[in-house]
């Protein structure tokens, strides 16, 4: 499957002055940020800083309180937007995999293709097999998720998102729930995806991945973007005191 051809003139994700409250609790305090088509942006920051909330606002799994978000030029925050169609073009990978446990691996990959993309069964299966091949799990298509290791489940979850032929992918700490020895396989899949030109926004604690694969690195704390820039720069020579103290704890 060839990755979508990025149109560099329109940012894949464009977030403008985004605010988000959970009740009284202000979680995002004015986020401005964009992801260029075909680039990989990694988001890091301490727990509770609002990374997941930001990511989940992009496909409106969370409802922004104010501000605007555009995906490929389409306003996600427009109340009249066709959210389901939009979401079908935005792949999402969760920390806890969230595979459908009552369906086989193959059906996990075909169900949304058929029900949302209205692909024929044959076509859906063909696409599913091709994506399974890509994540190295073609031989497990008849298995149920419960019979797979965490690393395999997460690769299936990535394949499930990919089989919708998305234009961009969101990852929320995809390796945080995995045993250390299983992290590598998942990162390999993501690395390949990036090298094919997929647009990716990745919340992660894997600084090595961010440095090597990321085109841009965003450090968040307390609901704001404290610092962003070239990953090697930010990681190697952080300008802000908060970034320095965070990195000194995790590196």
């Amino acid at each position, binding site marked *: 499957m060839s990755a979508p051809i990025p149109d560099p003139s329109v940012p894949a994700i464009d977030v403008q002055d985004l605010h988000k409250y959970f009740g009284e609790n202000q979680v995002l305090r004015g986020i401005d940020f964009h992801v260029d088509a075909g680039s990989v942006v990694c988001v890091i920051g301490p727990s509770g800083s609002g990374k997941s909330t930001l990511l989940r606002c992009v*496909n409106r*799994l969370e409802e922004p309180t104010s501000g605007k978000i555009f995906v490929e030029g389409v306003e996600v925050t427009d109340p009249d937007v066709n959210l*389901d*169609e*939009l*979401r*079908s*073009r*935005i*792949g*999402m990978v*969760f920390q*806890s995999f*969230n*595979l*459908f*446990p*009552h369906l086989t691996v193959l059906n996990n990959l075909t*169900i*949304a293709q058929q*029900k*949302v*993309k209205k692909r024929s069964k044959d076509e859906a299966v063909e696409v599913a097999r091709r994506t399974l091949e890509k994540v190295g799990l073609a031989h497990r298509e008849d298995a149920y998720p419960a019979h797979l290791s965490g690393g395999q489940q997460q690769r299936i*979850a990535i394949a*499930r*998102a990919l089989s*919708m032929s998305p234009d961009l992918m969101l990852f929320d700490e995809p390796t945080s729930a995995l045993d250390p020895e299983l992290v590598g396989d998942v990162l390999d899949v993501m690395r390949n995806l990036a090298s094919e030109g997929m647009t990716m926004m990745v919340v992660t604690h894997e600084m090595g991945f961010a440095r090597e694969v990321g085109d841009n690195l965003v450090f968040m704390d307390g609901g704001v973007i404290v610092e962003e820039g070239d990953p090697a720069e930010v990681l190697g020579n952080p300008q802000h005191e908060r970034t320095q103290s965070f990195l000194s704890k995790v590196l």
Partner: protein
Amino acid sequence: MSRRQRAQAGRLVQYAILAVAVVVIALVADWTTLRTQFFNSQILPSLFPELITTALKNTILYTACAFAFGLALGLVLALMRLSSIGPYRWISTTFVEFFRGVPALIVFIGFYYGLPVAFPGRVLPGGTLGVVTVALGLVGAAYMAETIRAGIQAVPKGQMEAARSLGMTHSRAMISIVVPQAFRIILPPLTNELILLTKDSSLVYVVGLGLADSELTDFGRRNLSQYVNLTPLFAAALCYLLITVPLSIVVRRMEARSEKAR
């Protein structure tokens, strides 16, 4: 006495009490009368084949129809209860509270005598079967709605989120992803509900049954008065156990299995 000896003595006493009770009952009971009253070998053969071909068949038929209707309605009520639209929630809550709070017998009577008054000239289609299906189904639906709602809420939130993130609508995600998982979770309590409905199908006697519509309890009572003997009732009771005991074994198996899966 050591602790162990004391525990042993205690157990011995318990066995002794049991033995005495059994002996006393055996001596006091009038075995000949008991056999002729409850297990009369002259009467028993004459109950066949109607006991099976009419009574047991009707009990199963009534229960199955009421269960199917109740399950479908229960699912609708559960989804209404979880709806974001207020009136749907209120209607569902009111329905559930009403039919759970009122004796099933009253529902039957209400349906049989109340409907013709409320809708003169109209009858529920399907005769006796129609009445049982609806009356018993409504009661079953009220209980099953709560079970199904709990099952839906027990499905992890991430499932709905994953489905929505793939572009599925809320209803599509419910139908294809959440509800199938909910039913797996609630299979044991639903089977228990089926057992309850099997027994409650006996309440249909209040609508007055023709011979062909007779189910187990009615059949037992009819023959009880005909033979002035309890054997028919005892036979009917055994038929109920024939249905309910295997079901409750199935439930226990399922519960043990899901215990292990955890």
